[in-house]
Structures are given as C-alpha cells and as structure tokens.
C-alpha cells in the first residue's frame, strides 16, 4: 500500500497535451493555407488529410508496440548506439526548436495585431518567454495537469463560439465542391499533414506515461479529436467566407470570432477568444520548451533539466526575431513544415522497424 510517489502522465492528460499541440496551430494560418491550396474544397482536403493522419498514427503505434515504454531516444540508442541517439536527438531538437520558434514569433505578432497594437513586439515576446520558462521550470506533470483542466474548458468555449457562428454560414460558399481540383486536394494537400506533426512529442513523452496501452489510447484519441477539430474549423471557414475573401485573412479563426454579435451586449468577442487562445499557446510553448530541454539532457547524459531552460528560452526568443516581417515568417514556417513532415512521420516508424529487425536478429 504505497502512496503514488512517482507521478505519471495518464491517458487523459496525454490526450489533452497532444490535442493542444496539434490544434493550437489551427488558429494561425492553417485554414488559410488549405484554402489557398484547395479552394472551396479545403474542408474535403482536411478530411482526407485527417484520415491519412489517423491511419498513419495507428500504423506507427502498431510498429512501435514492440519497443513498449521506451522513448524514441532509447530505441535509437539500442539500434545504433550512442551516435544514432545523438543524431536522432539533434534532429528532434532542431525540429522542435524550429516549431516553437515559429510560434514564438507568430503568436506575439497576432497579439500585437489584435490585442495590443501599441505595445512593442519585444515586450510581448519577452513576457511570453518568461511565462514558458516558468512553465518549464514547473515541469511536465504540472503542465499535464493544467492541460487536463484547461483543454476541455477551451473545447467548450470553442463549441460555443462555433454555435454562435452558425448564422453566418452559407452553403453557396462551398461550391464548386471540388474547389481547385482533385490533384490539389490529394497530392498538394499532403502538406496539410503538418498539423499532425506534433504527434512526434508523444514518442518522447512515453517514459513519463503509465503504460503503453495508455500511450496508444491517449495518442489515438488525440489524433482523432484533433482531426475532428481541424475538419470542423476548416468547414466553418469555408462556409462563412467565400473563397477569394478566405485567402486574405492571416488569422482566419480570429476573423470569424469578430463576426459574433448577440443582442446589444455581446459583440466582438474576439478579444475573449484571444484570451483563451493565449493560455493554450503558452501551454503549447511550455511543453515544447520542456521537451527540448529533456531531449538535450537525455542525449548528452546530463543530470538536470532545469539548468537548460534559461539558455534554450533565450536561444528560441532570439531566433524568433530573425524573420523580418510576418510574410517572411509565414514563408519560413511553410518551408519548415515541408521539411519536418517526413521526419515526423518516418522517424518513429523507421526506428521502430529497425528496432524490431535488431530484436529478431538478437533472438
């Protein structure tokens, strides 16, 4: 009869973390990018991409099952000893750092555009950096608990917002049904998988979880929920704005929330939406910062994680200022996603396959 001395991330918490990681970027430019690619058929493309992502996840997890509770770093070490572990670790650090760097720039940009037009960008970014550093100091268990409280709450708010948006939907806006054609939907649309690339974090967080069954279920629910959320959001965006207009908005979901007006008192809830989204963004960046430091610690066999937080948060903040404008940022973000998608999908599968082969040879 022991007190739970070592706290683990349970299924619900894992699911909430992954849902936040995958869906929070939907509120940036993702719906716009899809609309630019597929036109009125953006929602069909999202369904197609979501189905692919769900299938890819279940294949990956099936292959990974043999490795059990080992993280992607552990199995890379078993497959290719220390050199492969360092290579995989550095790839992960680069992908995650690039990912969080884009967020560290685009989120303050959105805050500046929508909430604080007079506040300098540097101040907004510094505040965000300080917040995520504290979050990373608090640790992954604190973040997971907050996710499990906050994400259901944010989900309810999102549903309410969507319900409020239904009067603005127009069926005419999704015609012609196949938008810019099936080629764009099926082949160019694969770029849309970038939204699910954050599932890679799952394979780093495995040692923090209770059992592989929980990991499998938590990840599965997360992918499915994220798929549903992305489909619904893109569908709403398609239905509310006609195609040429929809390509103009840099922050589509924010733009939709600006439409809401109920009676005399409830109008322009966009600031409230930004408030809810801001907390989700901070949780997102906090998790990434912690994961980056954790990978660095594991790869180089360091004793502590906390000492790495401040250097990494400074590096990330500095890199985030490199793009000269938001257009530059969007461009580099798109390039980054194109590069990172193959790694995110193939890295866990590839390593798991190698692990299985090595396992068979040893037997």
């Amino acid at each position, binding site marked *: *009869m*022991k*007190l*739970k*001395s070592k*706290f683990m991330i*349970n*299924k*619900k*918490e894992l699911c909430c973390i992954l849902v936040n990681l995958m869906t929070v970027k939907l509120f940036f430019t993702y719906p716009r990018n899809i609309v630019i690619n597929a036109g009125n058929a953006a929602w069909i493309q999202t369904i197609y991409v979501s189905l692919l992502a769900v299938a890819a996840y279940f294949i990956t997890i099936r292959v990974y099952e043999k490795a059990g509770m080992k993280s992607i770093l552990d199995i890379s070490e078993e497959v290719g000893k220390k050199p492969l572990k360092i290579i995989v670790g550095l790839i992960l650090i680069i992908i995650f750092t690039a990912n969080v760097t884009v967020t560290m720039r685009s989120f303050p940009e959105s*805050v500046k555009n929508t*909430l*604080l037009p007079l*506040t300098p960008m540097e*101040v*907004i970014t510094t*505040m*965000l950096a300080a*917040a995520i550093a*504290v*979050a990373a*100091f*608090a*640790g992954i*268990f*604190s*973040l*997971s*608990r*907050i996710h*499990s*409280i*906050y994400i*259901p709450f944010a989900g309810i708010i999102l549903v309410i917002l969507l319900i409020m948006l239904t009067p603005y939907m127009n069926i005419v806006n999704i015609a012609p049904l196949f938008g810019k054609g099936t080629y764009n939907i099926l082949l160019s649309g694969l770029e849309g998988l970038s939204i699910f690339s954050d599932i890679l974090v799952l394979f780093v967080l495995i040692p923090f979880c209770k059992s592989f069954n929980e990991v499998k279920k938590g990840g599965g629910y997360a992918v499915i929920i994220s798929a549903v959320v992305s489909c619904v959001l893109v569908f709403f965006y398609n239905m509310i704005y006609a195609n040429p207009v929809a390509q103009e908005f840099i922050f589509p979901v924010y733009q939709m929330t600006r439409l809401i007006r109920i009676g*005399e*008192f409830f*109008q*322009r*809830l*966009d*600031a*409230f939406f*930004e*408030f809810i989204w*801001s*907390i989700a963004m*901070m*949780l997102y960046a*906090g998790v990434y910062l912690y994961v980056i430091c954790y990978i660095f610690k594991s790869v180089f066999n360091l004793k502590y994680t906390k000492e790495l937080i401040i250097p990494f948060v400074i590096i990330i903040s500095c890199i985030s200022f490199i793009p000269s404008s938001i257009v530059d940022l969007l461009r580099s973000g798109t390039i980054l996603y194109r590069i990172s998608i193959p790694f995110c999908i193939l890295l866990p599968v590839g390593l798991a396959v190698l692990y299985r082969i090595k396992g068979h040879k040893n037997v």
Partner: protein
Amino acid sequence: MKLFDAIKRLCVFSIPKSSNEFVLEKSQSNIEYDVRAEKVEKPEKVFKTYDENLKYIEKRFSYPQNNDFVIRKLKLFKDTKAFLIFFDGMVGSDIVDLAIIKPLLEIPQISERADKNEILEKVIAHDQATYQDKFENVIDDVNFGSCALFVDGIDAAFSLDVRNWGHRPIEKPEMEQSLYGPKEAFSEMLRNNSALVRKILKTEKLICEGTVVGKVSKTRGVIMYISDIANSELVDEVRNRINAITTDYVFAIEEISLLLEEKTYMITSQILGTERPDRVARALSEGRVALIINGSPKALIFPTNAFELMHSASDAYLRYPYANMTRVLRLLAMFITLLLPAFYLAITLYHQEMIPTYLAYSISAARENVPFPSVIELLIMNFSFELIREAGIRMPSPIGSTLGIVGGLILGQAAVSAKIVSPLMIIIIAITGIGSFATSDYSLGWSYRMIRFIFIILAGFSGFYGIALGVFLYAVLLGAQKSFGVPFLSPIASDKKGNIGHSLFVSPIWKNEKRPDFLSDKDIDNQPKISRKWKINKKK
C-alpha cells in the same frame, strides 16, 4: 538660589552623579541546564535519597526564585521523608490535597520497605499516576502541569496528572460558521480537542499518537489517524516531518503549519487548518492525518488540495442541490474576487470594442473628472479596502463594525463626490470585496487578495494578454505544488472518471462509495455499492 544653580549648571562643568545604568551584555554563557544542548551533564536517573533529589530539584527549578514553583515537604509513616513538586495555578489544588497529600499522610499501612509499585497501588488515590525513573521525563511532566512525588529511598518519582489550569470552554466556531451540522469548535485544551474528535468517530482504530514540538517549549500534541484506513507512508511522513522540527519554541499550530509546508514562498497554503472537530473527523474517515497541539484551537489536516480549500464544512450537511449551488456561488466569487477588477481594467483600457457603445460612453462620462488613470484609481481603491478590512480586524468588535460602515459608505461617497474615484469603480470594488468574503478558507482569501493586485497590474500593463499570462502562471505554479506528497491538483491527476466534477461539486451521499483515490488508503471503500437497502427491500 535655584536660578544661580541653573546658571552654574549651564556655564560650569560638573561630574554627573552616578546612577544605575543598565547595559545588556551581548551574550551570556552561564546556562546551567541548556535543554537543547546534549553535552551538558544532567543526572539521567532519579536519585535514591531525599536530599539529593531535593537539592537537584531546587537548583533545576531555581527555587525559591521561581515564585510559582511549589515544593511541599511531607513526612510519611515512620518518618519516611517525601516531597511533592508542582507549579501553582497549573494543578487542581483539591485533587492534590484530597487524592495525593491526604492519603499519603493518613494511610498508615505503608510498609517500611515499600517499593514504588506498592506506593502506586496502595497509597496514591489518583487515576492517572505513573512512576518515572528518568529525571527529564519527570521535569517535562511537571512543566506541563503534573505533580511529582519523590520519596526517600525510592529511585523513582511518581508523576501524577493533576492538570487543571484555566481554559476557554467549548464554543461555536468563529471562522467556519455553519447553519447546519455540529456547532462545536476546538478550544485550547489538547485532551478536550482530541476527545471532541473521538466522540464523533467512536472507534478504537482512531490513533492519537503523542508528539512533542519545540525543543524548549516541548509543546505537546497528537497526530490523529485511523489505522485501518490511513496510508502508513503518509502517517510516517507526517510523523517524520513533525519530529524533525528543531525550533526552540512553538506557540501555535499555525507556526507548525508554516514549518511543515514544502514551498513556503508560494502564495497558496498547502495545509488545511480547521477549527471544527467534525471536519477533522470527516478528513480522518477519508484516510487523512490530523495534528492537534495544546494551546491552539485549530487542527491541521494533511494532505489537502486546491479544491478542498474552496469547500466549506457545511457543504456535507446540505441537500446536494443546495450544496452545489453554494459551491457554484463560491466558484463565481473566486473568479470575481480574482479577475473582476482586472477584466474591468482590460476592457476599459484595451478592448473597448467588447462593450456596447452606450456603456462605453457611460463609463467615460463617469470617469470624466477623475484625475487618476484607471490602474492607479483601482489600486488606490483596493488598497483602501484592504486598509479598512485590516483596521476592522484590529479594532474591538463594536468599533470594527462602525469602522466598516464609515469606511465603506462615508469614505466611498465622499471620494465619489470629490471626484477622486468614479462611481463604477466603487461598484467594482464592492463586488470584489463581497466576493472575497465568500471564500471559505481565510488563508485562501489572503492569497486571492494578493493575486488580485498582480492581475490588476498585469491587466493595466497589457490587457487580456496580461491576464492570460497571470492565469497561466498561477495555474502552472499551483500545478507544481504538492501537499505531503500529493499533487495540489490531485483529483485531476488521477485516472478516475469525473474527478473534476467530484472536486468542484457535491455528489449525493449515497454515491460516495469510494474514498479519494489520491490518498491511496488501505481501505478504499467508503460504503457498499448499495447504501440504501430500504429501497431494494421495498421493491421486493
């Protein structure tokens, strides 16, 4: 003549008359019996002879300098010498006279070779009497209100529990008032307090484990738990932490609470304090551990979590729809007291588009002649409110209520008339203040009041973004806290379904089949699945 003396004193120097000047020396090192130092030589065992014991006791208790210390010398049968020691005022004189001195002097059948057992069994007519071989135990008992008897020829002293000092009777709770449920509150007497809990639980499995806190004060207390339910690791942890406190003096249980907390710099308290025996009993029945110490009308409960601090003792006694309504009210009160001023500031300074135009005009018109920016206005008003509250507590109760009325009504009205603050600000501050009074735990209320100031500054600095930042940081730091090894947001971290619901709301009493799973109790079943058998019997 006097005038001449005065002029002389002014003009001519004269050596001042010597007077008794007190100078406090920096340190003194002539402590004879330092209770903290282990190296000082002290006799371990009670001496066999009367004279040795008497001499040592007189020296140890600084007798007769110590005015309230009493040594009563006696001559027993066949001139056997004995003496009693006790502190005047801490013992019941009647008991000492009738149950101890009288039998010792009157009963002749004591034999010449009487040993300690014989005296204990045949002579002393008192229910709580033991003999002690060690001097330190005897002295500790005497310091805590017992009386000790030394008899010539016996190398032990008889410790007789005759404590009877003045104390407050059992009264109604002051901080945790409730219309329903028991109306008793703890007082300052340790045994009364433990008995109040025991009479509710009525089980021999309720363990009241004695403990002593404070190296010098040796404040006695009891660690309470139900041995069949409480996790033994939790009990061990509580015991170890309490035993590891090495401070000299402990005056109140609140000090122990501060010494036991893991993160003392956090704003929110991590230990639940209560003055209600029924709340302690309920906590023990769930598998928690409680601590009561002598001289404190309060008990500490370990572990606790963020949600329990928001609960009230009366929630358990209300019908569950009513209890849930009060919980929702308190939750709203929490949001109001924490965030209302910050939201007001954020909306009026940064996000005016959220409010209808006519309301924006109205706010603007109300603030037209106010010289301060909204942030300063809000901070001044909040500070004034806190000042009134603090002054109200310090004042005697009749003046305190008057001060509240004067501060609230007259000052507020005068400030509006003088156009120092806007009327809307008075409304915001008043609602915020009422919200903070609805907080059930006083310590939690304190934390809300402090965090509110932070939120106001953040909202003044960067509107909703600042508030989001504040909420995020508060939540993350709260999530990182632990109370005796249990995460502060523990019910959420567990796998059980509906944990958030159970933490925030009350479920019907027949549904409470399990004890809180984060406590990892020995017995997790609180009641059988069917706790209302009459329902099934009726169907049959």
